[in-house]
């Protein structure tokens, strides 16, 4: 049962991010919501790779006692996802900054020149 708590956290984070993405009106908050969804995804993949009692998947640090390691593949996947997330977040915030210059506002209700 307690093994499922991380997944519960992932689900809650995902829903929080998703709701924020849809209902928030401020561009910076939307950017934060995207980051929350990203964090939930990364946490999900990391949790999938966990094996109870496993040590870190690095030979130099694993020690001799434990024979189990957590799965290294999901960690590699997560790192890649984090790198991509960093690029996305940086670009998102730059857009927010430049949009603020053009529209003088961060409220999505004011940023509506494209419609129809």
């Amino acid at each position, binding site marked *: 049962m307690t093994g499922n708590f991380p997944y519960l956290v992932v689900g809650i984070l995902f829903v929080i991010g998703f709701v924020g993405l849809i209902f928030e009106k401020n561009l910076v908050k939307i950017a934060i919501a995207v980051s929350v969804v990203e964090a939930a995804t990364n946490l999900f993949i990391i949790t999938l790779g966990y094996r109870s009692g496993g040590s870190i998947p690095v030979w130099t640090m694993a020690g001799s006692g434990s024979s189990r390691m957590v799965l290294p593949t*999901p960690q590699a996947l997560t790192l890649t996802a984090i790198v991509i997330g960093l690029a996305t977040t940086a*670009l998102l915030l730059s*857009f927010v900054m*430049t949009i603020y210059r053009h529209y003088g506002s961060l409220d999505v209700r004011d940023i509506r020149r494209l419609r129809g």
Partner: protein
Amino acid sequence: MSWQVHLPALLIAVPLLGAFLAPLTALGGKGLRNTWFVLVSLAFTLIAFLLWARVGAFGTAVYVMGGQSWNLALPSGMEVPVRILMEVDAFSAFMVLLSAVAALAGAIFSVTYMDRFSGLEKFVALYFLMVAGMFGMEITGDFFNFFVFLEISSVASFGLVAFWRDRGEALEAAFKYMLVSTLGALMVLVAVAFLYSKYNVVNMAALGKVIEWGMVEKTSLVLFLTALAMKCGAVPMHMWMPDAYAEAPAGVTCALIAVSQASLYGLFRVTYTIFGAFMGSPIIPWVIIVLGVLSMFIGVSMAVIQKEVGRLIAYHSVSQVGYMLLGFGVGLLALSDARAMADYGFTALKGGVYHIVNYTMYKGLLFLSAGALFYATGCRNLNDMGGLGRKMPKTMGLFMIAAAAIAGLPPFNGFVSKLFLYESSFAVHPVLAVFAMVTSVLTLASFVKIFQTAFLGPALKKFDNVREVPGAMLLGMSVLGVAILLLSLFPTWSVNHLVEPAAKALVDQASYIGAVFAATVPGGGL
């Protein structure tokens, strides 16, 4: 072992190298940068063509990144592939070829179109990154890499959509596009993680071999479907598409179309190759069909009322994506039933596949001619235009070809693919065919509107100084124009050599999986 086995890797490596060296070409000035832009584009088009020819001749190409040998998919007697694989079957090769042509046309067009702007070496770098990501999505044999390439092409295209960052609208469009596509990409990642949690593999072929039908797979399929339908602009989440397509520089839009086709490719790779065996229940095919019909109809009815050229054409993209979804949905419906497949399913698939190539060609050409109009006159609004046919006869001619093709007028290629779609969807339900035809009529109506307002009518005084656009832009447009004409003049050849192998490869789940597991060197070792 000929050097051609390395083509899948070169297809990614050449645009990447082009992107990484592009900022350095700024040192050599404008000429060097433009030469680099066109040369690398020609190079990847050539590679794409060679790859397509090779796959046509030798069957599915598998390439192992970083292996001792290019075909060592299962080293040391492993049961699943552990390395990063590229797998190019006929469908992938087909997608790669047409994306390359679209990207080449966009690149040649952009050389002059973007002339007035600085920072172009960054433009070139982003353009090549987007192209590399697009090719990667189409040839990868690995779900995680699919996500990575999806993000590469998306992030590069966000920058390109917002390239005219002094227009607030461009930034607004890019922001919208970015939210939809980042969310879509994360959903793809979650879907991959679901599959990984159960099977511990991310390789597509290995997954297709072992996959069963349970809760995990259903969740994953739904996530894939939602995310990729979002990315390719199907109806409930289509609102980013008109904004981004209309606001991006025209050359970029031409390549962006190919990028959204790559998402569509992902959608069909997932539904046909991975989950193909479980399509006995008609729910998923019908969802795709309904999405397609809605996209078709809503897209075209939004298009009819638009006044801006770019937005009008962009709304047509939504409706054209609907046609492809309809075709592939009908094909999927027939997938598990051999008789239905022979009866109407394969025709629908052929229609869908053929429509992909037609759509990419004529939609690219339409956006390029809209860009040419904008370049020459500086206006986007149809109400301000008129009588341009006398000033820009060549642009008008090319626009006419594309408009006739998209409307499905008989000698042109759009007619053939639409005929396949009408024929097959009628067999499933007559209403589908009726919707498709009504959409086609409305499409014709709205293109007559553009043609009539922009090109015909009396010459306006304010356009006295307007000239025909420069030669490089016309050349870029002609690449697509010639492609459309060739497809129209040789419909039998293109159906037999271009479309049918791709459609067959899509249905043939076993050979896609088998290609990886057969591609081993016995006793090869690590």
